[in-house]
């Protein structure tokens, strides 16, 4: 599985949208229906899965799937 697909599979746990139907412009809260806590939990899973450490303040500025992917790539 590519990293992007692995990432989208984690996203899909929290919403009704399937990984292959996601696009980078989708917003977590508005388009995917994440609650604020879903988003926090999702960020925690990213840390564990990809062995990265997120700065909470920066991570919470992320709005879209594409921005989260960019952040992930930047930290690796």
């Amino acid at each position, binding site marked *: 599985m590519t990293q992007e697909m692995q990432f989208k599979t984690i996203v*899909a*746990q*929290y919403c009704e949208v399937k990984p292959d139907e996601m696009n980078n412009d989708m917003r977590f*809260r*508005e*388009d*995917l*229906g994440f*609650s*604020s*806590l*879903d*988003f*926090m*939990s999702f*960020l*925690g*899973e990213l*840390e*564990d899965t990809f062995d990265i450490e*997120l700065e*909470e303040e920066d*991570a*919470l*500025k992320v*709005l879209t799937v594409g921005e989260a992917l960019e952040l992930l790539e930047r930290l690796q």
Partner: protein
Amino acid sequence: MGILIRDILEDSVKKFADIKAVKWLKKKDILERSYSELMDNVIAIRKSLLAEGFKGKHISLIGTSSVEWIESYLAIITGNTVAVPLDAGLPAEDLIDLINRSDSEALFLSPKNISLLEGILAECPKLRKVWLLQEEEPDSLYEKTASLAGLKAASANSSTDADRPAPDDVATIIFTSGTTGKSKGVMLTQDNLAANVLSVDYTTEPGSILLSVLPIHHAFCLVMDWLKGFSLGTTICINDSLLHMVKNMGVFKPQVMLMVPMMIETIYKRLASVDSAIPKKAVADNVFGGNLKIIFTGGAHLDPYYIGEFAEYGVEVLEGYGMSECSPVISSNTPETHKAGSIGKPLPNAEIKFENGEILVKGSSVMKGYYQMPEETAETLKDGWLHTGDKGYMDEDGFLFINGRVKNLIILSNGENISPEEIENKLALDALVGEVIVTGEDNGLAARIYPDQDVVAAKGLDEEAIKTALQAFIDQYNKKQPTYRQITGLIIRKNPFIRSSTKKIKRQEALIDEPLPMA
């Protein structure tokens, strides 16, 4: 005759001296403090507060959960001082307003929130002292500022301890959203808090592990995680961030936790996403750490569906009901007495009656009033009966149920009470916003905006340009707000809101006539 939090704490220190009271993470290490060590620090801070002349004064705290925060809080409320815990996530101007409105003369501030210091010192004239919740001495450039470590050390020169407060003395002021758009300071006495701690029918072995994941400035967390936890001799573990809640369940392996419904909903998504071929016991061990037996929940409505689902993973979810004004628990399901869908039986110190369907509460945990708000106090407290703003009923077995709201507050599933007017006032500052109503939908807040037609015409804006401009304005607003006050839905209305004969917007109709589009 009333009881003091100091009585409860001293009793616990006698009984559980060597048991760990608090555990927390520093990087990957687990640090800990026993009941006797905790008490030594509480007494040291209490003596120094007295020596510095703060007897009878109000002291604010800004920060997330930490051992330093809770020791300072306990020092304040076990002496003759009043603690004002504030939400560290609020914008600076709101925090400054609350420090001033609560007449706080001192502040304990987390080093994480140091960026607030300059503004607070400049705009809070009554503030005489700020202690940073840290071991190192602060930058000497800041006037009036010292470290908690310095405050504790100063107690070595002081032999006099603070007198015991009276049971009817105000111990703490907790701010809660008001329906008029201005938050209200709920005054809770020593007896209010102690009675709530002792009336909740739950006990566990000393040394049991409790993981605290809620915001510490909330009454539910402060009284039920911390004060109740200490009364039972539990070891309270601090969750360092909501990002790490599940990971920290694996680290600390709690037996009991308090959550708001939103947390239960989020964890359930993780449980449900696991391959159904994997045994539920293995999934539960992985997600909950292996020892979790009970989750107490409150602060918002929980869909009873989750109670059955969590039971399959060996975790009992017990729902309760309360509000800051009642210190906070009014009723709760317990391991022995529970009914799914209900909010449990009233506590033994809470008398309940109904007036036009509204739940009214009387008893030893009902607040003294709102700080310096006599009119709001008189509206809420009538002949000792607290008007909760919730509608409900009691079944033939004595279980309480909620089925609606009287007041205008939005209750999100994370337990936050949102005053729509407070946010509407801020959104209305944009010239393009003609009329606005904020509603709670899809587990978040939606702004319904009717654009100002004069501005639209003057700028020649089309539908797309209006949407872009309003979304940009909302993104800017969101950046300055804690997540629970952010707007996650935007509906641009084609028509003005429907108004009543008194020209007030009919909020309920706003939801129906132009509904939120499906996600």
